[in-house]
């Protein structure tokens, strides 16, 4: 049986210590859970393990034999295989091409022996029940199958230690269950598995042991048979965490957003949103659940004027908005937290102050007759920085130098500091620390309690369940199911996977 042991691993980047004196151990036939919130140093640790980084100090031993990895190749040949959170797959390559990349079988003049490789891929996929067509292009596969390709990739390299980095982030609950089955059967064949996640119930469900990582250090171990959700959360965050939010019951008022028979095309001209109708009223949060890529992005873009709709009606506050564009939507009082802050929420090499006026730089008091008034910008932005607890040295600091959580608070602060009538929050807490998550959730609830309507789009089921008054589930661009009050998570899970019953 294989065994892997990390001793006193430390790794820092400049002044930032990402990992400090990490000790973990896993052996064949067991699943070790590595629990930690975003920014705790999980990814750095995994990059050390997979040979992408060299640790500053400490040792990695496999079967009690000390190893040093200069490149991923060394880690692979030592039997370590990594299933990445963001799939490391070339979309325009076939399954087989992705699997063999770096370990190609070639004949005369380095020519590829594709059919032989395809046969091998098929063998592995059948042996471990990881069904995919070896000839299919990755970009045509659903997310769940893509993950199976990732697993086949490491098995093809005869990995004995498998590392799963946040593997459930993009899966439906059903796909998660299936993944856990696969992990268990891999465990049964004697492989050692390290499962990295920030989701408490998942470690409790599938792991044999749990190590908890916080601020770059291992802060404790737990036994999943006895540990509770609350206990783990406290260890992970380092202070008591309030998992359930206080919510007053909602008193929905007038209809603020009314969507009728909306259809929207995607970038590739697919019908991304297909004939959907719903509304959001005053004083309620409507959650849009669904697995990533089921039309959420296009829906939000259409609602905010970033994308023209194919057909259907969108009315805000009882009126259709002619020639919808982002500026007009903003001017009538709709605020938008975009799904990807790096992509469109902030401008990295603009200062915090410049970022805070992104939506209304053109209007008084920030500018008059085309002339910017930087003094006013400075005063106003300092107010927002204070009110929304944005941790930044000054408002002249470049936004790219802030942490993810503070960048997100910058976006939230910008959107919610001026008068809000309606808020569209898309993935408002993706990839940020628990403190910031709690803070942003409080802001959303506060805004709702003040009578605003909120459309919350999230792929985190827990977030949807914790915040929403009503839930609609998107599947392949359609509303497959609506829930008037909080349903059982399993029911939403089924709907997310496309079961309408």
């Amino acid at each position, binding site marked *: 049986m294989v065994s892997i042991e990390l001793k006193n691993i430390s790794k820092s980047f400049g002044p930032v210590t990402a990992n400090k004196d990490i000790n973990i151990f896993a052996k064949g036939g067991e699943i070790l859970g590595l629990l930690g919130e975003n920014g705790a140093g999980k990814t750095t640790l995994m990059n050390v393990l*997979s*040979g*992408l*980084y060299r640790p500053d100090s400490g040792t990695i031993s496999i079967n009690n034999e000390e190893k040093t990895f200069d*490149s*991923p*190749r*060394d880690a*692979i040949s030592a039997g370590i295989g*990594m299933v*990445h959170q963001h799939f*490391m*797959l*070339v*979309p*325009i*390559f076939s399954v087989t*091409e*992705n699997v*063999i*990349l*770096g*370990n*190609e*079988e*070639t004949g005369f*003049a*380095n*020519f*590829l022996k594709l059919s032989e490789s395809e046969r091998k891929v098929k063998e592995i996929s059948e042996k471990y029940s990881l069904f995919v067509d070896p000839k299919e292009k990755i970009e045509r596969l659903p997310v769940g199958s893509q993950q199976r390709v990732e697993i086949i*990739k490491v098995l093809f390299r005869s990995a004995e230690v498998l590392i799963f980095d946040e593997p459930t982030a993009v899966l439906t609950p059903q796909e998660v269950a299936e993944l856990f089955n696969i992990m268990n059967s891999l465990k049964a064949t004697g492989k050692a598995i390290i499962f990295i996640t920030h989701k408490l119930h998942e470690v409790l469900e599938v792991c044999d042991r749990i190590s908890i990582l916080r601020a770059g250090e291992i802060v404790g171990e737990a036994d999943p048979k006895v540990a509770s959700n609350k206990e783990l959360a406290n260890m992970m965050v380092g202070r008591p965490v309030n998992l359930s939010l206080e919510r007053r019951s909602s008193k929905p008022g007038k209809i603020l957003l009314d969507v009728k028979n909306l259809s929207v*095309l995607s970038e*590739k*001209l*697919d*019908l991304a949103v*297909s004939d959907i109708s719903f509304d959001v009223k005053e004083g309620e949060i409507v959650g849009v659940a669904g697995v990533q890529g089921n039309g959420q992005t296009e829906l939000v873009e259409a609602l905010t004027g970033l994308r023209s709709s194919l057909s259907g009606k969108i009315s805000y506050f009882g009126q259709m908005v002619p020639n919808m564009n982002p500026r007009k939507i903003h001017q009538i009082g709709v605020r938008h937290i975009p799904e990807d802050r790096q992509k469109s929420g902030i401008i990295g090499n603009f200062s915090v102050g410049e970022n805070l006026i992104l939506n209304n730089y053109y209007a008084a008091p920030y500018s008059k007759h085309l002339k910017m008034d930087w003094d006013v910008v400075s005063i106003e932005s300092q107010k927002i920085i204070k009110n929304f607890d944005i941790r930044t040295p000054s408002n002249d600091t470049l936004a790219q130098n802030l942490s993810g959580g503070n960048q997100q608070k910058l976006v939230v602060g910008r959107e919610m500091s001026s008068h809000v009538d309606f808020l569209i929050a898309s993935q408002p807490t993706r990839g940020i620390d628990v403190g910031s998550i709690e803070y942003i959730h409080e802001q959303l609830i506060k805004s709702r309690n003040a009578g605003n309507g909120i459309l919350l789009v999230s792929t985190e089921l827990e977030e949807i369940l914790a915040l929403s008054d009503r839930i609609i589930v998107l599947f*392949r*661009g359609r509303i497959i199911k609506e829930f008037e009050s909080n349903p059982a998570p399993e029911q939403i899970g089924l709907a997310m996977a496309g079961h309408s019953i």
Partner: protein
Amino acid sequence: MNMEVKSSYHQIKQTQLIGYILIALGIFSTFVFSVGVEGDAVFRLSRPRDPLALQNLVVPASPYNFFVSFVLTFLGIRLLIKRMSNYSSLYLGLGFFLLITCFLVWATAGKSFSLTGMLQATVVRATPIALAGLAGVLSERVAVINIGIEGMLLVGAFAGAVFGSIFGGLIGLIFAIFVGALFGLLLAVLVITYRVDQIIAGVAINILALGTTSFLTSHLLKSHPHLNDAPIFKPIKIPFISDLPVIGPTFFQHNFFVYGALILIIASTFYLFNTGIGLRLRAVGEHPKAADTLGVNVLKLRYLNVTLAGMVAGFGGAWFTIGSVGRFDEAMTGGRGFIGLAAMIFGRWHPVGALMAALVFGFADSLQQKLAILKTPIPSEFLAMAPYIATIVLVAGLIGRARAPNAIGKPYIKE
């Protein structure tokens, strides 16, 4: 169901657009090329000493052009009636081809014109463009934009002339390739190791190549003219097939550069798409991080291919001197490197595609040259502009369908 909606929506728009374009072309050629044109257009297919001679092709100008204009309009209307066609871009290609024949007939009406000569010149003129395009494919497939090809052609031309003058053509060619490789390596060092913006680095290389070759020309070659008098590669007739009418002179009576370009195109196609290293190279261009996690050395492969691109460009540059006129003149490549980049884009980052596009450019180039003899009312400067305008139109029209390697322009940094 979704897929159908998508494709039909897209195709209807495109089909319609192309329909209108074809009708416009038909009307245009009716009034410009057909009305009031007299005489026959005589196209010479063989030259006096060809072993297998063909008769001249005699086309009655006005009837032919009226007929073709009618066909163009008919095709356009047909597309509009059909509303949707999978072959609309094929129609467009056919339409442009017909329009060019119209133009030729119009320009030749009452005169005679060597068609074979023009086709032969097309292949010759396409050669440096195809090589520049191939250099572009090689480096862009590993996600390195190579604006510096123009400069690499220039140094190749220079090295070919100088070393060819001293040591003879073959050694000159080897030095041209070597110097091209050095400039490729320089680009690689700048953009891969020092992460200089790829376009800026390319511009710098172009200026550097222009400055260096011009400086050396005025410093060395002016005072030592024997250093700028290189032998030219002689045409090699391929036995038997070179005697075929039209096809023989067009394809099989060229010097080593034409055959070499063809061999390089075929070899690179296999290299990129059928070998293990090719798989890694393409992965490096599409998703370098994925390749890195599997132990593929991203930076090394980028170095390899960018240097190879420099070698190909150096070879293409040598065409200008030892493959063509035997002497170097300042800035003699005249923007062929940039046209090569355009050819790469139309060729959708595929060596064979780049070759096809280069042939189109070569055709425009030789057409302009040969038409000057026919004394058409169009000023020669405007004919000289035609390929550039065509490039702009094609770049504007083709974008969206062509897809560059995903990681293009981005340096690879392990975070």
